[in-house]
């Protein structure tokens, strides 16, 4: 009676647009088993980092992920500072916090938009991404870049925040609060959304602990874990904010946690900007002694963990990177099994997966195929344009 069918999703996810491969085994509409296969996007960053100096590594690490491009350098510089060990100047701590929180807001908005898009609720998608532009503008004023801010270095930050920029930035941050509140209401009061995502994909508290889930995924299940509160770094112990914890662990709660967290982030950013202390921003660290260090910070998706070992030379001998999705991804087994196929997409999206971060090790094997670099691709594109042009002029 029970005929099982395998539904493959991937290796290129049609909605999340990242490389991963899900094999869903279904019985009728019900998902009975799931297998996740990753590893399509290896870049060898852990190995690469061992070939770079401590300062250069910061830039390599920044490129692990485009969305959370602050969290990896943040954890890395804290790991290097843990080797020495040293405390960075107060002003640097505040600036780091501001950048990290700005990133959290834009990352959560990006996810919220995508989640709306997955559900076919494109109004949320448009609103969230329009709002995200505002916060990216703020980041551009503060760091000079919309993404990949390059603000971090072992011992401090690379760029100061100008005093005259602060009022404008605060005004801009204040201006997004009404829209954020509106978005919060739009999601919380919408009966269709309630009916669609409430009670599906439940990750219970016990399972969350067993799978060692992190960040909003664990906080939605009632596990109060947040590296910002548990082991305060930066300026998080000097400003007032609340950890958002909900109880049910379903998709709806994961949405709520992320929405409310954005408002907390706005609070943190504003307090930091207003109370920016007047000290140095950099310690000018010259030598890294032999030893090992650990840096862990709360990224938008959960705790990012870096382990760095130094042998006294100017390069790390081992650099271990653990992105939050690495721990959150296996929770699929607990959440998807037993649900219907139509709910699988949003349940899979609810942990805010970021596959590119998860797959950062290994050496590439191209097996004799030709590799294209940037120049080759430009040439190919030009050749194609020429071809089209010729075709058109012939007509």
């Amino acid at each position: 009676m029970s005929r099982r069918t395998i539904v493959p999703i991937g290796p290129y996810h049609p909605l999340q647009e990242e490389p991963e491969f899900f094999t869903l085994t279904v019985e009728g509409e019900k998902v009975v088993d799931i297998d996740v296969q990753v590893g399509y996007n290896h870049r060898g960053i852990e190995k690469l980092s061992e070939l770079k100096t401590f300062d250069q590594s910061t830039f390599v690490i920044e490129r692990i992920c485009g969305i959370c491009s602050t969290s990896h350098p943040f954890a890395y510089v804290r790991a290097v500072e843990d080797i020495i060990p040293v405390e960075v100047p107060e002003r640097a701590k505040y600036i780091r916090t501001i950048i990290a929180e700005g990133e959290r807001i834009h990352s959560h908005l990006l996810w919220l938009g995508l989640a709306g898009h997955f559900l076919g609720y494109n109004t949320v998608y448009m609103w969230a991404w329009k709002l995200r532009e505002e916060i990216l503008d703020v980041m551009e004023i503060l760091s000079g870049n919309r993404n990949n801010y390059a603000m971090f270095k072992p011992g401090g930050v690379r760029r100061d925040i100008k005093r005259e920029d602060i009022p404008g930035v605060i005004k801009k941050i204040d201006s997004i609060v009404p829209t954020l509140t509106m978005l919060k209401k739009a999601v919380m009061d919408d009966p269709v959304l309630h009916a669609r995502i409430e009670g599906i994909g439940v990750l219970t508290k016990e399972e969350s602990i067993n799978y060692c889930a992190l960040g909003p995924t664990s906080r939605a299940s009632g596990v109060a874990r947040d590296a910002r509160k548990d082991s305060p770094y930066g300026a998080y112990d000097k400003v007032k904010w609340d950890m958002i914890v909900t109880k049910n662990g379903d998709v709806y709660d994961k949405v709520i946690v992320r929405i409310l967290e954005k408002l907390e982030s706005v609070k943190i950013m504003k307090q930091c900007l207003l109370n920016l202390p007047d000290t140095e921003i950099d310690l000018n660290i010259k030598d890294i002694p032999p030893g090992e260090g650990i840096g862990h910070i709360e990224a938008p998706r959960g705790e990012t963990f870096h382990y760095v070992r130094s042998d006294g030379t100017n390069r790390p001998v081992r650099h271990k990177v653990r992105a939050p999705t690495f721990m959150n991804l296996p929770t699929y087994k607990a959440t998807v099994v037993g649900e219907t196929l139509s709910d699988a997409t949003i349940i899979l999206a609810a942990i805010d997966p970021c596959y590119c971060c998860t797959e950062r090790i290994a050496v590439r094997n191209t097996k004799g195929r030709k590799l294209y670099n940037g120049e080759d691709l430009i040439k190919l594109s030009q050749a194609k344009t020429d071809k089209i042009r010729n075709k058109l002029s012939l007509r």
Partner: protein
Amino acid sequence: MNREEILKDIQGRFKGDIIDFFDKSPKRVYIEIKPESLVKIASFVFKDLGARFNIASGVDTRFHMEILYHFTIEEINLLISLRVKLFKPNLEVDSLSGVFEGANWIEREIHELLGINFKGHPDLRRLLLSDDWPEGVYPLRCDYQEWDKDAVRDRGV
């Protein structure tokens, strides 16, 4: 329990299993243990002390292999790293995936990248490496050598 009591408790309970106890800083403790007592100590730290498993990190130091299991006790803001040293050719340690599910993937990763066998792991398939990667070649080992003669090296890096 506060920090001192917990550390004293661990030291007293596992006197015969601890090789080295390094109290690095108020937030970091490194405990080197015997490989055979890993499951015992890890279960105690995870279940009884309520710690969260951060991750494990494998290191090849040329002389021996090391695996560090990082646990955080959030209430007292302490990161405990259990260090296990393994010597060639006996690269085997008990799997922790029976104790908590969070260790499943990282053991698969260490298995394929460093070639350490985890006894009792339910599913030691490859996680990150591609299927045409040869058996017995471990990319994060110190003695790793390029095995594919046809591989095209990236010119951009």
